[in-house]
């Protein structure tokens, strides 16, 4: 191996200057390289995106972009509304109705008398209706299915004396049993004397009883009297549903029972 030269770094002044220059550049790169490279990378990335992903700028494209933005905004508003509805439903205690399937039904006719009479609807067992299914209308709780045929069902309204419903007043929170008197009026009995019930309070189905889902509107408190023994309150309740004019019902099927339509 012929070694013809010598490493002359540090011997010649030109070499020394070059060495110092490159060393200074290296130190500067070491200190500021990441910053410079980061900025350069961002700039190159932006140019790259412009080259390959720049839109055509046509009016149609602009309109579509605007439509997408509007739809995104609407979507976010709807999501917010759904969230609020869920919160309100939770606040009202209507937590079980979501899990139940419902069958819409139309009232065909009524048997004689509101107190002892029943309503016959056009949905029966072939539609998935079972006995003890709860019937509601847009106004509130209507009654309960007591008999089912193939295509029709009999609904006993809550004004019937044979129907007792565990209820709670809102916002006072007093529990009681909803009963019907012989004259067809509704009363909430066995209400705690110390409860702060006021006229106008809503009467809702409570979570006790097991037949009726909680949170269904039954009516409003219209009067407060002491019971016979004087140990409980008796509340007069005006039903929310108008049983005479109700033509459409919603039959809530028992839980885990699929509807046929």
């Amino acid at each position, binding site marked *: 191996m012929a070694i013809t030269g010598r*490493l002359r770094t540090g011997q010649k002044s030109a070499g020394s200057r070059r060495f110092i220059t490159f060393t200074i550049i290296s130190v500067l790169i*070491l200190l500021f390289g990441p910053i410079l490279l980061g900025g350069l990378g961002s700039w190159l990335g932006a140019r790259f995106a412009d080259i390959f992903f720049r839109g055509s700028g046509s009016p149609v494209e602009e309109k579509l972009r605007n439509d997408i933005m509007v739809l995104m905004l609407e979507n976010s508003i709807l999501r917010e509304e759904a969230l609020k509805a869920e919160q309100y439903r939770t606040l009202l205690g209507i937590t079980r109705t979501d899990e139940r399937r419902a069958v819409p039904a139309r009232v065909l006719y009524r048997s004689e008398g509101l107190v002892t009479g029943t309503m016959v609807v056009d949905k029966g067992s072939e539609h998935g209706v079972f006995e003890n299914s709860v019937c509601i209308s847009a106004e509130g709780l209507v009654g309960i299915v007591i008999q089912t045929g193939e295509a029709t069902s009999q609904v006993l309204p809550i004004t019937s004396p044979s129907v007792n419903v565990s209820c709670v007043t809102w916002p006072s929170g007093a529990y009681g049993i909803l009963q019907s008197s012989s004259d067809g009026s509704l009363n909430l009995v066995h209400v705690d004397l110390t409860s702060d019930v006021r006229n106008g309070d809503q009467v809702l189905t409570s979570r006790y009883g097991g037949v009726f889902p909680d949170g269904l509107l039954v009516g409003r408190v219209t009067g407060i009297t002491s019971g016979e023994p004087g140990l409980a309150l008796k509340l007069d309740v005006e039903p929310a549903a108008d049983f005479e004019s109700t033509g459409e019902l919603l039959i809530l099927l028992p839980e885990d029972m699929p509807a046929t339509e």
Partner: protein
Amino acid sequence: MRIRFAALALTVVFQFMLELTAGRVFFAPSLIPFMLVYLSENFESGWAIDGAFWSGLCLDMLLHQPLGASSIAFLSGMYVAGLFSDVSSGEGRGYLLSMTAIAVIVSDTVFILIASRPIGSGFGPVLLKVFPRVILTTVTASLVLSTSEWMTGLRSRKVTG
């Protein structure tokens, strides 16, 4: 000139592949200082500076190391190797291998110190890893030189014969 530049570039790529496969940093021989010493001793001395800077920069970018750390390390190594060449008058393979060993010791030590974060925190037992690498590099350089001498001898015999 182009052939030498290509040789140095090839060495950088080979070093990159070695350090990726054989070990992160200190389990592969450091071939770049050897190549720089070889080029500067046999051709222009400018290779010791320009080559150190650019090959270090490329290696740092390839290995995602702190940019400029290898450049400073190689420049330092070549500077100290140059000081050694000033005080020695040796020639031949031993001289070249000694310069390579010195360049590797200095460059690896400097690299550990400035590439660690915070800078200088690598000072300690980690520096001992430099010596196995120096031995590995010296052995590799010796093999390369022997092979090249043997090949040169083959070519000479063919031409003269």
